[in-house]
């Protein structure tokens, strides 16, 4: 789920290196649905038996989005891939989405498989649970990515080579970790504050960064691949052109409205550089932008126009290969602080911007050891489903009063309602762990209320 950004004109700075030919296009779609929580009650803490998630609501939302977006868009893309052998796309499909496919929509999974069989689709790696684990636990992050890689291999018979972290959360260290894990590329947000006057339409590399020996050992133990890569390339989202489609397409107050495929292609060609990376939520098609906005006609027209104008579409891996072959010097993208594709701030504040959000993430992280120790796959799975970033996003109070996009995306009444449900699930999980523990009784009794002084 990505939030809406403010309206900006669909223009992009020209790249430093003009190659003469138009940039190739790298299209990547994020596919994800979280497991939303039930209206859990404190009186049930201790007896929830890991039944934290609202099956009815999750199923209803999945089916609704399947009918409006996944099925029709997949059908359209399959048609386009067959008609235009040079048309390429990439997906990052979260593990919890794939789980929901098994529960609520084998037909959806099947339609993604068909797209994969066309051979023009790249599948990216991400944390299986679409989590914020990179912020709290390297081991957990590695395990979740490895789990996702193995799942993609099993379902689509391809091995992901490029990593996309949750909501494009990124910093220098993460790129080096991804390289040591064995990935040749990583996706990130093209943030102005880091690019300065440089264009996002080229590939970057992270600054040299020594990962501590301890972390290197952890990476070697839990990484998905046997060997590290020598180099890693960073693909940056061209947020202006991406958001023209994802957020502004149907905005009648936008100067670019109505956006035609011809006009958009003009902008793509004008944006210059080596590659224009269009990264967006897959739900853009039919869900965020409804069918009656003309979004499907827009998508349908693109490959034909690109072919006519000699614009190449490339997957992220192909883009990296082409860049490396072009022997251009690779500039450095130096992100000391975390960035992401969310909100105006493009930082972590959508998930870690207030007290309840940081408390919730700290509380889930605090259970890592006891949950692992339990060796109970059901418990580990429930704990990991609670790590999905959406739970923290729903607790965001930034702009809350303005009735903004966080409100739009939230299935709950308020950020406080999100926290209430989440904290009950966590308390239940803690109690379950406590009661199973054969060690001395835990010092924390979560059923007891703190005294005012505590």
């Amino acid at each position, binding site marked *: 789920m990505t939030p809406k950004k403010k309206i900006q004109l669909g223009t992009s700075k020209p790249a430093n290196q003009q190659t003469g030919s138009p940039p190739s296009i790298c299209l990547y779609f994020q596919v994800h649905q979280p497991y939303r929580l039930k*209206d859990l*009650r*404190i*009186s049930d803490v201790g007896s929830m038996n890991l039944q934290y998630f609202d099956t009815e609501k999750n199923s209803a939302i999945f089916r609704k989005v399947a009918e409006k977006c996944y099925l029709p868009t997949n059908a359209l893309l399959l048609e386009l891939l067959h008609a235009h052998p040079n048309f390429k796309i990439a997906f990052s499909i979260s593990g919890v989405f794939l789980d929901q496919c098994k529960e609520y929509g084998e037909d959806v999974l099947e339609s993604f498989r068909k797209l994969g069989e066309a051979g023009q689709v790249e599948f990216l790696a991400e944390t299986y649970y679409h989590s914020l684990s990179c912020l709290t636990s390297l081991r957990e992050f590695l395990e979740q990515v490895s789990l996702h890689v193995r799942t993609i291999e099993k379902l689509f018979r391809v091995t992901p080579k490029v990593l996309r972290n949750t909501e494009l959360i990124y910093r220098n260290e993460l790129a080096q970790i991804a390289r040591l894990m064995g990935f040749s590329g990583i996706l990130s947000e093209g943030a102005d504050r880091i690019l300065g006057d440089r264009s996002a339409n080229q590939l970057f590399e992270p600054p040299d960064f020594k990962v501590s020996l301890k972390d290197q050992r952890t990476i070697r133990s839990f990484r998905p691949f046997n060997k590290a890569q020598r180099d890693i390339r960073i693909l940056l989202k061209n947020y202006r052109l991406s958001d023209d489609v994802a957020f502004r397409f149907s905005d009648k107050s936008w100067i670019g409205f109505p956006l035609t495929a011809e006009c958009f292609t003009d902008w793509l060609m004008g944006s210059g550089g080596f590659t224009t990376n269009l990264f967006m939520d897959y739900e853009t098609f039919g869900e965020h932008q409804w069918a009656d906005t003309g979004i499907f006609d827009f998508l349908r027209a693109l490959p034909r126009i690109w072919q006519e104008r000699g614009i190449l579409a490339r997957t992220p891996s192909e883009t990296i290969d082409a860049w490396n072959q072009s022997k251009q010097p690779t500039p450095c993208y130096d992100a000391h602080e975390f960035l992401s594709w969310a909100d105006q701030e493009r930082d972590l504040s959508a998930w870690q911007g*207030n*007290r*309840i959000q*940081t*408390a919730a993430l700290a509380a889930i992280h605090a259970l890592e050891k006891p949950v692992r120790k339990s060796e109970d796959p059901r418990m580990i799975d429930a704990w990991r489903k609670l790590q999905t970033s959406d739970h923290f996003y729903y607790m965001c*109070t930034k702009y*809350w*009063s303005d009735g903004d996009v966080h409100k739009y995306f939230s299935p709950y*009444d*308020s950020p*406080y*309602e999100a*926290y*209430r449900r989440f*904290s*009950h699930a966590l*308390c239940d999980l803690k109690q379950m762990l406590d009661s199973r523990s054969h060690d001395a009784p835990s010092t924390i009794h*979560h059923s007891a*209320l*703190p*005294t*005012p*002084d*505590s």
Partner: protein
Amino acid sequence: MSLHALMFGWEYPPLHLGGLGVACQGLVQGLLRNGVKITLVLPHANKNAERDVAVLTTDNASVTTLSVPSILQPYDTHGSYDIRAGNISREDCNIYGGDIAGAIEKYTAASVNISRNLAPNVVHCHDWMTYGAGVRAAHYHRVPLVAHIHATELDRTNFHPNKWIYGFEKRGFDAADRIIAVSNYTKNVLTEHYGIAADKIAVVHNGTSEHLTPQANFGMHSRHGKKDHPMVLFLGRLVLQKGPKQFLDMAKIIHRKHPEVQFCVAGDGDMLPEMVTYAINQGLSQCVLFTGKVGSREVSELYNRASCFVMPSLSEPFGLVALEAAAHGTPVVLSKQSGVREVLDHSFQVDFWDTEKMADCVLTILREKPLALQLRSEASRAVTYLTWQHQAEVVRSIYENLIQA
């Protein structure tokens, strides 16, 4: 433009029973600061008019208070008025009117009479008892009429209105050139149940008065120095509308799980004896404290002492107490059937009948320290932005638009 508003009120601090008096005072003070001259007409049985003047702002150079002899009190019904009228002398009855209809008629006639020599640009009246006076005065002075609605008869009676009062309100709404509702919630009541066109109604939420600015004291400690049990607070008149029974039902649910939690029911009202009996019958005698009527300093103490404030009103046009609680840094659980929820995002909001969920929200606040801390700091900060100075600016522009039309 120099503006003069002739305002008809019905309660004003310190002679007030509920939020209406506080809201009127805040609005008057805010309008004064926005350069609007106010002539305030108030009913009061106290023949000593000095008291009214004394309660106005210190900076009240342009306020003139005219007092109309009457024993009308807000929240009056036929029954309660009859009781009070029965206690006064026959002679006084002749002055004030022996029944509520007669009292309002006298108030209305006197109000117009007393303001005859003024030259206001606009007439502004607050709630049904002043609407008759407002309509006549606006007609007499040939100026626009603003009807301010703080609470409808439907709110007070759980949607079983006294037909006579309902009719009075409806005639006021119809006669007004513009209606100011204290919330979108109330605006909806007016469009749905009174058939008023939505575009005739402006929503101006109540502001917070100076004395509501956040208190430094965020402590939850007892003054006796020992650890105290968490306390959950109800504050309001003990009448059906405010949901005291819902509060006790919620208390029972919490008590079952956490007998150490204390409950405080602050306020007076018709339902006090009934609620005391109910609490005892529900086995809550050891954990519920009924305070009766409380003064403003005690109220402040209670807010500071409470771990959580609950407003379970059945229908609450606004709900100033919730803002007061928030200003004191007390986490708030609100009825969804209220207007204040529109301006108090940092709170829990539940349907008044869902006492199970209400209890759950309270227990979550008591258990989760980061949550309580965030509600404390965020809600009290939000309250500071909602000033009467700003809200009165909106009212002033409503006046201006009416006058220019």
